């Protein structure tokens, strides 16, 4: 049987993953013949790590997903630096900008999204491209452009206080730039944070040297000078990094007459309105998730690979619970589910802890004992735990405060004095010797640490309980003095 001709449009994280998933199921290409068309000149790279590149933690080549030999090794045709000009659904061909025509049995749209530039005066040139000194933070090329422009110490403005904007701001501040974040809403990351959490986050970031101009629009940009804000103030900037949101890349799909809303509308089989065309990742619109995150795209890639290789024709995508994690050095922030529930919500149990001076804010929303929302700022280990509870739908522990505090909770009886220990307390674990056995041995005449060791074997294993045995010997010498008590004290010390 002739393998299915599958054309993947888009060589980003979703498209690359789809190809990997197909080859995992069909290593020899017996069922699916793959062609990937990518607009960028690079091989696929890991967009999630761009903020690490921006922060200087990672070289650009470290984020490449596929090495040069990958396509040959897996029998995939890859065409980078190539635009698709149209999809002809009647004759089932994809036409490339260079004139090549690829016939298909199935198309996978993985065109992703593009940065949205706000209508600030001067931000774009007459062609709609970013003006000199303006860079969107979206691609590896953008990243390299920012790094080339933002010389150390130079003022940089970041337009947009959402997740990516803040990651860029943190990275640039860490490189020594003077960074100002301009955000039109009253608090940062308003989609994922409530106002109180946004305030704590801003305070923490301010301590790392980032300035904020909240609740104000940028009204104009002058290259070499900076931003003019709607309140009349001015933000100096050699460089403006725009991170004001993205829009799904739906041009091809729209031209081909597929159903479009915010993205390309897909069902649980990730099919568009044409069953031969699938869409995955940021360009797709599925009710079970939001765009802008990689995990849904990866899960969707696996489902479409199941379907197109025939590995599992019943595979369906039903959604991905969304957990937002800010990846910025020295800041731990996780947000998930319904974050805006208030303490007086009649149907939900809401627990909140605020410690702004230490950069901590924790909010937990529960329904029927299960976590349905949380904001965890500055409480990393608790965040990890809460995320797992949320992902797995497990009931939360009954002690909600302990959950929110995580490791901050004292871990029980450390440093208890010998007198306070119950007699059943095991002092020497290696030889299962309890305080009671030591007391018995003492009363039977073992009046020194070494005599106690001979009598009970306490401290003869790893030796780590020697101090504890000394302590008990000293305590016994005080409370149970005998003719040899003074000797015991001396030996023990």
């Amino acid at each position, binding site marked *: 049987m002739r393998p299915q001709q599958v054309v993947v449009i888009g060589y980003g994280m979703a498209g690359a993953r789809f190809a990997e998933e197909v080859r995992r199921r069909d290593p020899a290409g017996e069922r699916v013949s793959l062609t990937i068309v990518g607009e960028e000149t690079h091989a696929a790279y890991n967009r999630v*790590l761009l903020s690490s590149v921006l922060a200087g933690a990672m070289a650009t080549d470290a984020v*490449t997903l*596929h090495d040069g030999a990958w396509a040959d090794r897996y029998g995939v045709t890859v065409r980078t630096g190539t635009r698709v000009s149209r999809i002809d659904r009647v004759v089932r061909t994809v036409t490339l900008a260079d004139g090549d025509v690829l016939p298909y049995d199935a198309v996978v749209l993985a065109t992703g999204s593009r940065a949205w530039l706000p209508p600030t005066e001067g931000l774009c040139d007459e062609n709609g491209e970013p003006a000199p000194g303006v860079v969107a933070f979206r691609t590896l090329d953008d990243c390299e452009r920012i790094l080339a422009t933002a010389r150390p110490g130079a003022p940089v403005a970041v337009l947009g206080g959402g997740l990516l904007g803040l990651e860029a701001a943190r990275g640039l501040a860490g490189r020594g730039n003077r960074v100002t974040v301009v955000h039109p809403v009253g608090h940062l990351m308003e989609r994922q944070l409530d106002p109180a959490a946004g305030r704590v986050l801003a305070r923490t970031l301010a301590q790392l040297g980032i300035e904020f101009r909240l609740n104000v629009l940028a009204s104009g940009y002058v290259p070499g000078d900076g931003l003019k804000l709607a309140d009349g103030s001015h933000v100096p900037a050699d460089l403006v990094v725009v991170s004001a949101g993205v829009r799904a890349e739906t041009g091809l799909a729209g031209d081909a007459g597929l159903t479009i809303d915010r993205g390309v509308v897909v069902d649980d089989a990730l099919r568009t309105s044409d069953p031969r065309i699938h869409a995955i990742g940021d360009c797709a619109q599925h009710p079970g998730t939001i765009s802008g995150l990689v995990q849904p795209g990866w899960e969707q890639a696996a489902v479409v690979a199941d379907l197109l290789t025939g590995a599992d024709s019943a595979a369906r995508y039903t959604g991905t619970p969304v957990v937002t994690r800010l990846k910025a050095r020295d800041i731990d922030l996780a947000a998930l589910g319904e974050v805006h529930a208030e303490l007086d919500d009649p149907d939900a149990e809401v627990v909140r802890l605020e410690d702004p001076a230490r950069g901590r804010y924790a909010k937990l929303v529960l329904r029927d004992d299960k976590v349905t929302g949380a904001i965890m700022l500055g409480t990393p280990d608790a965040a990890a735990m809460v995320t797992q509870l949320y992902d797995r739908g497990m009931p939360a522990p*009954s002690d909600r405060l302990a959950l929110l505090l995580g490791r901050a909770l004292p871990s029980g009886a450390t440093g208890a004095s010998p007198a306070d220990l119950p007699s059943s307390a095991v002092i020497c674990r290696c030889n*299962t010797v309890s305080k009671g056995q030591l007391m018995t041995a003492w009363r039977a005449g073992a009046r020194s640490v070494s005599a106690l060791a001979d009598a009970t074997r306490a401290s*003869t294993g*790893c030796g780590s309980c020697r101090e504890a045995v000394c302590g008990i010997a000293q305590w016994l010498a005080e409370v149970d003095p005998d003719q040899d008590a003074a000797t015991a004290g001396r030996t023990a010390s």
Partner: protein
Amino acid sequence: MAEPLTTSALTITKTHCPYCALQCGMNLSSEGGSVVVQPRDFPTNRGGLCQKGWTSAAVLTTPGRLTQPLLRRSREAPPHPVSWDEALDYVTERIRDIQRQRGLDAVALFGGGGLTNEKTYALGKFARVALRTSQVDYNGRFCMSSAAAAGIRVFGIDRGLPFPVTDLDDADAVLLVGGNVAETMPPFSQHLRRAVDLGGLVVIDPRRTATAEQAALHLQPAPGTDLALALGMLHAVVADGHLDHDYISARTNGFEEMWRIAAQWWPERVERVTGVSAADQRAAVRLLARAHNAYVLTARGAEQHASGADTASAWINLALALGLPGRPGSGYGCLTGQGNGQGGREHGQKADQLPGYRKIDDPAAREHVAAVWGVDPAELPGPGRSAYELLDALGGADGPRALLVFGSNPVVSAPRAAHVAERLAALDLLVVADFVLSETAELADVVLPVTQWAEEDGTLTNLEGRILLRERAIEPPQGVRSDLDVLHGLATRLGQPAERFPTDAETVFEELRRASAGGVADYSGVSWERLRDGEQLHWPVPAVDHPGTPRLFLDRFAHPDGRARFAAVNHRGPAEPPDADFPLLATTGRVLQHYQSGAQTRRVAELAKAVPESYVEVHPDTAARAGLAEGQLSRVVSRRGTAVARVRVVPSMRLDTVFLPFHFAGDQRANLVTNPALDPISRMPEFKVCAVRLEPAPGEES
């Protein structure tokens, strides 16, 4: 039942503990007919002993000691004592019948990681030469196989610790993955003291164990997610600028390919899979990277998974990324478990191996070993089934019809234990050599009473690849024979020349030297004389004037090009994820007072009193949701079976995890629930994670 001990008066014998791979030094002396244990200063234990070691002599005089062969000619009849001749004649006759009717592979052998090197060697030779069966494997498959596979893949060689254990004394930082040394080999903890005191011990374990309590940082991943954690930490090494570029270019291959995978496991993503915060992953990496002397150590928690070989490889990858292996004062090591867990995997009781860590499908290896054995290489069988596959096949259409067991108790220690017991019952012949009536021996048609550690001579190879001599300290009870004797008796009855299966351990060792010569684990330069002189010989020891090799890899790794190879491994998760019917994860492990299947330690009164029965550790909320409270009897139910265990409420447990120790018998066997999903490379079963539910035992409902 046991004869009184006859001992040479007031002699003190320098020996080693019968239990774990630390092989603590001890002296045995006899006073008034009973044997007394005294700790001895030896590098591994420095004069320390745990409760198991202190009480080890009690097994010598246990009331249940076997001193006569037992035989039953029909399963309905109870076994009755018979003479050795009758027992061995019967076994021989049955082996002949079965092999005549069903072929050579219809008879199988199952060995153990507690057997001496000499026994290991003789067992493998007996299988290939006297029985000519390919069907031989051993319980070490359940312990060391994943780390062994990983070591061979990455370094080109497998020696648990490629450095003396005392090197750890100078460590500033130690990452211990899936090991609870404070309970499993307590005197070992001394070697971590400096790291503990400097705040440099990092422990990775789903439970807050006694070892984790001592750590500056305890990472508590969900069971079955260790590989993801290793990838996340490797990612952090790169992202946080700790990668040792010079080391990687000078001493390794394959970093790029491995990085393509690790690049996709940024710590925040790993956090979601493992439950270990990204901050903790980074902190652990920072601790290792900043140390002068740092080590990564793995144990069964990382290895006993259906992805165990890949998981162990991933931890070695981390060590390589930090530039640790092969540098003095740092490295990677695996903590071997059983007494002879190292030697036991080197000399031929493994299905795919010949002595000297040679591969049975390597023509040169076959030729060399066949020449030592005086047989035609073409007559040597090929590789056989791995341990669980062997047990699973017993009594089946294509499987063996007879099994001879030495030094193992698979009814308790194998995964899916009820099924294993069924397979044993389906055999035409089960022969068990042991010194007590273990749970496996109880099922046997023939039980052969054999000597134990203090009653016989032999060598073992400890966790650091050092060969140790354990000499006979006391006379065995009348009526028992050594395993070497048993093999000799069977081999000669099967028509083998008597000199081909010597009963004297030193004679066997001399042959082992020749057989291992030129192999990976080369013992040819080791003599008992050198061992008696107290020489510290770590293999390879290729000549009698060779000082041994305490530290491997200082100049080169064991691959032909001398470089270590990063393994491009990816996370795949537990073979059996939790679901609505089985919502919890069960993990299994050990307690300080018991060893392996407990056949020995449950017979020591002091140990049995300290921990008399099985238990299940569970978070208080999880217990309450199951309607259980501290001290109540619970049923831990999986798709394969149910274990009964008393509830211990432990607030530090993860909500999704329960823990069972596996040393107990009958309906308390943890292995009634475990999952026999096997690692594709090492054939290790997934002991460390399976899906279960928890419910009150009948009569305990509240």
